[in-house]
């Protein structure tokens, strides 16, 4: 029974990884760009939700906001931040030299943004972890001896709904068709009338939306936010994405859940200290044995960045 409970906890934990991993996989699948600002966007959303519920808008413009408003504002803020990142990372990427490390330009740029946002938050709110007030509907559901918390269940549902929705958009809508065309061949897509300059921000908006939702759900679930919270979640989401396969949305879902369950099982059998070795060892093995991932397409990301 304890084991089943642990698997369930793993799935719940995994649902946070899934949301962030889908954000990673979307940018890498369509734009061939490993966006290192995603962990910070996730952190930004959590910290913003905390700050808004505690103090309200900075400079004393408002009282502390009620939580539904604060959460919505946090998500909107994250989307805006993501669009700013797009303006300065992807917009300026030009092919000039064609050498081996040149594809890393947006990646390095996003590392720069990671430093900027994270340290600005540290300057503003300090480096300590902060407690987030519990929401009113935080109850525990008992399912035949298995305990589930309402916010966790809601996170899982939100993650699944978003991912299915995203999948539908990519498969069936006009925007989705454009995005898939860019993913396949950006130049050909442009020639055939896909306006990539208008579609690329859509990817970043979706990234911001996913990170924003993951951030606020994490804050509600675990009741604690800190400027460092993105590092751990972000790196595990990257691990999940790679295991599932770069560029595959269902791969990211599968990978995120695998990482969540692996983490819980490792804690159950070996203790909390070995989590890092288990998760990263799994990633390393996956990279050496099956670099395209479980559900990934062989060509995406290969030799490109």
């Amino acid at each position, binding site marked *: 029974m304890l084991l089943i409970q642990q698997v369930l906890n793993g799935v719940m934990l995994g649902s946070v990884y899934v949301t962030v991993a889908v954000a990673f996989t979307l940018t*890498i699948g369509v734009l*061939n760009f*490993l966006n290192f600002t995603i962990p910070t966007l996730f952190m930004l959303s959590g910290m913003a939700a905390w700050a808004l519920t505690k103090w309200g808008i900075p400079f004393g413009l408002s009282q502390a906001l009620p939580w539904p408003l604060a959460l919505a504002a946090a998500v909107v803020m994250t989307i805006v931040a993501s669009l700013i990142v797009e303006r*300065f*990372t992807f917009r*300026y990427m030009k092919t*000039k*030299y*064609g*050498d*081996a*490390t*040149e*594809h*890393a*330009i*947006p*990646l*390095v*740029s996003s*590392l*720069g*943004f*990671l*430093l*900027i946002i*994270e*340290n*600005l938050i*540290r*300057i503003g709110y300090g480096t300590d972890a902060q407690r987030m007030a519990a929401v009113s509907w935080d109850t525990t559901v008992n399912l035949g001896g298995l305990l589930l918390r309402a916010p966790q269940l809601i996170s899982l549902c939100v993650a699944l709904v978003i991912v299915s929705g995203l999948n539908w958009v990519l498969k069936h809508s006009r925007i989705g068709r454009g995005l898939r065309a860019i993913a396949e061949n950006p130049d050909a897509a442009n020639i055939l009338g896909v306006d990539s300059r208008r579609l690329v921000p859509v990817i970043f908006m979706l990234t911001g939306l996913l990170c924003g939702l993951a951030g606020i759900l994490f804050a509600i679930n675990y009741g604690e936010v800190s400027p460092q919270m993105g*590092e751990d979640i972000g*790196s595990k989401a*990257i*691990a999940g994405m*790679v295991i599932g396969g*770069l560029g595959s949305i269902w791969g990211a879902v599968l990978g995120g859940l695998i990482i969540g369950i692996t983490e819980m099982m490792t804690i159950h059998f070996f203790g909390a*200290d*070995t*989590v*890092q*070795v288990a*998760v*990263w*060892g799994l*990633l*390393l093995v996956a*990279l*050496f044995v099956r*670099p395209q991932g479980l559900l990934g397409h062989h060509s995406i*990301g*290969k*030799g*490109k*960045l």
Partner: protein
Amino acid sequence: MSGYWTGILTILSINIIMAYAVFLPVATGQLNLGGAGFQALGAYTAAFLSAAFGLNAWVTIPAAMAVGGLVSMAIAFPLLRTKGVYLVLATFALAEVIAGVILNTDALGGAMGLSVPDFLDYHVPLIAAVLVTLFVFYLMATRFGLTMRAAHDDDVVTDLLGVSVRGVRVAAFSLGGALAGLAGALYAHTFSFVDIQSFNASLSIYVLLYVLLGGTQTAFGPLFGAAFFTLLPEGLRVVMPELKTFIAAAFHQSGPLSPPDESWRFVILGVLTVLMMAFRPEGLITRSLIERLKPGRRTKRLDVAQEVSA
């Protein structure tokens, strides 16, 4: 010399060696986002040999370099099968695994860290940094350095011209690992204490940024990048409080102010990174910049001009 300056010199020397450790793989076209992992390997090798067997630094430092070099060579073969973004992820994952293993090994002190008995003062890292710099400059001037540049610029053509791109990359990666081991060992002996928290993912990111901002085309780049970003915060430490007081005074505030946070230096590093990638993605110091600054070039031009006019 005061303790403050010797401290800065030590850090500067270690950062320069670390920058070259990351530079060598990057110069062959492989981004290494796991520098801290190899530095941790070196630091813990030196610390363990020194603490457990009482060996002196002249034994532990070469041993740390050997461990760094051999481990990276062993890992280079499967690792360099991956390319581009996969390589970045694999090196990143590798550093995390190394950190995790060290954290869980009781003989290495786990989360408590290890203290290192044999103390070295700042002369040793300084001399090591100078030697490493000279070595890398020499290396880049040899035929091997030329093949490294070629592998960076176009691996397919280089392969067609009969250079073993894979061999060059493995060699550069292992040499980088050995240098990271050296940097780690020097760290262990000069700070007399190692703990795994000092070798985290952020360190790998900073070192890679030093190198990329300095420029990867010549051996001047990492030297400049590491020196600039080590000395910048020291300069800011003087300027920032005064700037803050000035701004506060402009807003009619007086009284004691909290000193500005360390975090500002990372914000500045981040802003510079974003700007550099937008306007000068090849790094500050490039091959053409060096050419332009070389003495004698202008006179050569003039000679040609005179010949043409004559």
